[in-house]
């Protein structure tokens, strides 16, 4: 443990100065300062992000055995502040900002090493603890407008501290989901593709699976069971499955009911007899994911793709164009921006527009800020209904390291 630095912040003056300027920018734009708790119930993260969080977060137990963690980000803690507020009085809209330390393991686990961007450790200083300043807009607002505003404000904050030389990377998960919706295929496949979108390898595997005859590797007896339940009613199918278990002397143990097991088997049985997904459809998905172009050129490329494939993407495209216009109208220079269809796949809770700001010519190491839309998070954290949310955070330690000897 002797490699732990004694100070949380290597250069306190630079950091204070940065934090001050960034906070003032947020404050001036009408955002309200909040101070979420540093210690969070681990359960929230475990339910939301899953066990993978243990690979990068300080999770520990108190003497009651309750699991707590040091916050690995500030988005979830800020969302909890908002939810708590909604329980007290029905405040629906909120524009919040924060600034403070977050905590991550400096080690990388082998299996989790494909993560990058927001998850990466800061460039120098105390690698277990680093500061983030960020904003969140919760509640119903015109989506594209809120997105343009968040990006603009993030850029303003960076300008305020003297950083102007950066690239913007953008993506839009909403476009991908719209594309899936427009392609004709069984709903269960669409769901599988959508739910596995951020898992690169798995997604490829599913695409390959769907493109082949669904000759799953079942043993003879199971195949005949699947045949039996194809096109059967749920009730009939359950009888067959129950009978199969009885002949094999397999008892029904655990939480899952016969109905649940049968339901999943019916889906597999349907796959067994379905025609594979046509190569043209797979091709559209692949072509879309290959798109990487200046944001202003993307509209036309998508239009082309949609027309060749005979898909109706009008709504999603309109929203995309509208956002581009709004970004231009608030003087965001899209000349050094790049839209990448794949971008945003790595962050599980994003649902739409995503962006990342990188210091010019620095690659991932130059990543200083990022954000995006995450419309499902509040509901899954306990808010009774879905609520739009978008936010962004600046990695202050990274920023301090980059500015060091550069501007300030």
């Amino acid at each position, binding site marked *: 443990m002797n490699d732990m630095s004694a100070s949380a912040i290597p250069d306190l003056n630079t950091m204070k100065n940065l934090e001050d300027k960034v906070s003032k920018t947020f404050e001036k734009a009408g955002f309200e300062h909040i101070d979420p708790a540093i210690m969070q119930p681990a359960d929230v993260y*475990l*339910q939301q992000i*899953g*066990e*993978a969080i*243990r*690979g990068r977060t300080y999770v520990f137990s108190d003497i009651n055995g309750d699991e707590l963690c040091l916050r690995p980000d500030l988005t979830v803690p800020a969302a909890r502040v908002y939810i708590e507020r909604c329980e007290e009085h029905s405040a629906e809209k909120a524009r919040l900002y924060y600034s403070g330390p977050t905590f991550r393991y400096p*080690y990388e*686990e*082998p*299996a*989790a090493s494909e993560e990058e961007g927001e998850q990466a450790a800061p460039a120098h200083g105390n690698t277990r603890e680093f500061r983030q300043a960020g904003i969140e807009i919760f509640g119903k607002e015109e989506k594209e407008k809120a997105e343009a505003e968040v990006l603009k404000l993030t850029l303003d904050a960076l300008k305020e501290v003297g950083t102007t030389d950066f690239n913007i990377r953008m993506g839009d998960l909403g476009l991908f989901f719209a594309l899936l919706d427009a392609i004709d295929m069984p709903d269960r496949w669409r769901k*599988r593709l959508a*739910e*596995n979108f951020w*898992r690169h*390898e*798995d997604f490829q*595997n599913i695409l390959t699976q769907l493109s082949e005859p669904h000759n799953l*590797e*079942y043993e003879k007896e*199971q195949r005949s*069971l699947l045949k039996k339940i194809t096109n059967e009613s749920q009730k009939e199918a359950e009888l067959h*499955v129950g009978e*199969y*278990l009885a002949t094999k002397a*397999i*008892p*029904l*143990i*655990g*939480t*899952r009911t016969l109905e*649940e*097991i049968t*339901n*999943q*088997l019916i889906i*597999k049985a349907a796959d067994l007899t379905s025609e594979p997904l046509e190569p043209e459809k797979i091709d559209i998905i692949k072509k879309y994911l290959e798109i990487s172009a200046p944001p202003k050129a993307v509209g036309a490329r998508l239009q082309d793709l949609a027309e060749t494939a005979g898909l109706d993407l009008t709504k999603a495209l309109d929203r995309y164009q509208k956002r581009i216009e709004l970004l231009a109208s608030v003087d965001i220079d899209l000349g050094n921006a790049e839209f990448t269809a794949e971008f945003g796949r790595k962050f*599980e809770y994003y649902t739409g527009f995503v962006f990342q700001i990188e210091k010019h010519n620095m690659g991932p190491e130059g990543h200083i800020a990022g954000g995006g839309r995450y419309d499902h998070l509040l509901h899954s954290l306990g808010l009774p209904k879905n609520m739009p949310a978008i936010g962004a955070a600046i990695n202050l330690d990274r920023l301090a390291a980059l500015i060091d000897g550069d501007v300030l």
Partner: protein
Amino acid sequence: MTETLTIAVPSKGRLMEETSNFFRARGLNLQKIGHDRGYQGEIEGYDDVDIVYLSASEIAYQLKTGQIHMGVTGEDLVRENIIGVDQKVEFLKKLGFGFADVVVAVPDCWLDVRTMADLEEMAMEFRRRHKRRLKVATKYMNLTRQFFTKKAVAGYRIVESLGATEGTPMGGTADLIVDITSTGETLEANHLRILDDGLMLKSEANLVASRAAEWSGGAAEIRLDIMSKLNSDPV
């Protein structure tokens, strides 16, 4: 103080006996010092080697911290307890006993779940219906997390289980398990089935060296001597 090499060996049961046999067959006689129930030992004829008898998981821990130079313990315990294992230790030799497969096993009645991919597909449905993630009982929290991440399975929570893990699905504490098995009998008795691609690790007893231990002085040389014996054919 004269330089010595510290080797930790399992302090009880089959592992202790087989370790002792393995060493003896190659001309290294392990013997306890003092009371038979004590935990200090030596190798006959080697004044510069200390033998310490420890539990198998304590051996993994002390390999990580470098308190011991070498140790005999299960590969599963080393990989579970040491993050960044290749920087911390070196696997010197598989010893050919203490075999155990670390596996993912589900209730046999889950006819719809044959692979890790099936598990993830079902996990999403499960979460929608039960408002919670699948619970996986195991004592291998790190290995499980790494394997599940590799297999792109995310819809689960780990419930730490320190014993009788195979019984947890039937008892309702967990939905599936990650545990060691050698013959598969206990799994079968508890109506569990290993997933087709659910073999996480084929483990056996290993001789492992710590990279964190102090090797300067005489320890490295004594190690060479001991290793040449251990690598020779058994008598």
